[in-house]
């Protein structure tokens, strides 16, 4: 339930920022892909199922507003969420590198698929132009944004969503300390 309450507004909020607040950047082609960051972060923090759902709804929103038909982006983001979710077992470490790596790989993969669908299929084969004009600027913007967005998402997750796990961890630590203490006493 808590996951739902944070997940759905996060998708809407980041979509709004990406499409409306940062729209001035659209022409230079360097709008950070915040929905991708969201998708990868949640897949890492919550696992594959969350990654799939967040990816599906993020993609669907993009489809509705930017595409002639539905389904293309929904499917792309769905798979990114699924694959990024493979890193979830390592979440215990609360590392920063892994989710950023996911975003990095995900953004490149997404850009390449977009290149195939929107350029190659239309007969435009200038990969160099696409690479320097679209892929690299967006990748840079996305990576910079993810350095700011991911810690925020992690903080929200740890502070408001993952409370039980946190309490359990604290309880376990407390138990361990108590056990150790009683053990010491017994030795005395």
């Amino acid at each position, binding site marked *: 339930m808590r996951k739902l309450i944070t997940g759905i507004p996060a998708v*809407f909020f980041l*979509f*709004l920022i*990406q*499409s*409306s*607040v940062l*729209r*001035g*950047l*659209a*022409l*230079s*082609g*360097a*709008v950070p*892909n915040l929905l991708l960051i969201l998708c990868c972060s949640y897949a890492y923090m919550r*696992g*594959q*199922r969350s990654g*799939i*759902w967040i990816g*599906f709804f993020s993609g*669907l*929103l993009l*489809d*509705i*507003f*930017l595409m*002639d*038909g*539905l*389904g*293309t982006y*929904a*499917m792309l983001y*769905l*798979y990114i969420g*699924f694959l990024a*979710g493979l890193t979830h077992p390592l979440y215990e470490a609360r590392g920063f590198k892994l989710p950023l790596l996911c975003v990095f790989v995900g953004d490149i993969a997404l*850009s390449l698929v*977009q290149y195939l669908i*929107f*350029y190659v299929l*239309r007969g*435009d084969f*200038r990969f160099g*132009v*696409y690479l320097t*004009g*679209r892929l690299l*600027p*967006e990748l840079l913007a996305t990576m910079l944004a993810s350095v700011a967005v991911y810690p925020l998402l992690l903080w929200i997750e740890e502070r408001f969503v993952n409370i039980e796990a946190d309490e359990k961890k604290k309880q376990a630590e407390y138990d361990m300390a108590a056990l150790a203490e009683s053990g010491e006493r017994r030795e005395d």
Partner: protein
Amino acid sequence: MSPVVRKKAERKKLPAKYLLLILTVVCVGMMILTFTGGSDNMAAQDGAGFVVVPFQKGISKVGAAFVALSEERKSMEELREENRELQEQIDELERENAQLMQDHYELSSLRELYELDTDYSEYEKTGAHIIAAGNGDRFNSLILDKGRDDGLETGMNVIAGAGLVGIIVECGKNWSRVNTIISDASKVSASVLHSQDHMIVSGDMEMIRQGLITFSQLSDKDHQVQIGDKVVTSQISDRYLPGILIGNIASIDTDSNQLTMSGQIRPVVDFEHLSDVLVIKKKKVALED
């Protein structure tokens, strides 16, 4: 006792790979339904529009306020410089205007003779705010804050100032999407204003970085077309109203077949600082009725 119970609860959840499979099928189904035109995605558009558009409107208002704030901070010197330039422009325009007024009287009398219809400045138009934009890749599409409820339809031309912005390709209840002429997927049938030579104007991901769009298939046997000539939408276009200004020719090259020419056009619309547009409520197809 409790570990057993928890295991059961976990088992009730669908494993990720099945979820993936199901949603993939859903996506493919949506693609087939919406891309083949078997059914339109009206319900999804309206539902999402109902939730998202009010927020986007608010955000774009805040954004506009910020832009106004940064404009205010322009220094006095810059403003003086700008003022001087504008004054020069006004003088020039006044001269031009006097000339044009003369031409106008001539034109209107000739029009009466020919009983010609008027140009696009007299079509019914409605203003709209831009509330969102597609991110850089391919789209260069704009989301407007008006839709079917305000009488907009797909296929209506969108202009800003004196120039063509694009065409409405998707129309929700309270929003619509405009495909701009600088988008890579856009193709406009156009002609050079003074010689009426036809060409195809299209967006280009390489050129737009310099603020240019490209044209191709211009056949100009007499080499009348020159750099700086005005390009307008063509009479023969089936989607765009005739005579809307697109831009000025910035460069011309002869194609390798020695028959046609291609080159670049500098659009008159400043796409980077666009915030309001006008939608012409008359469609090309409807004009022919």
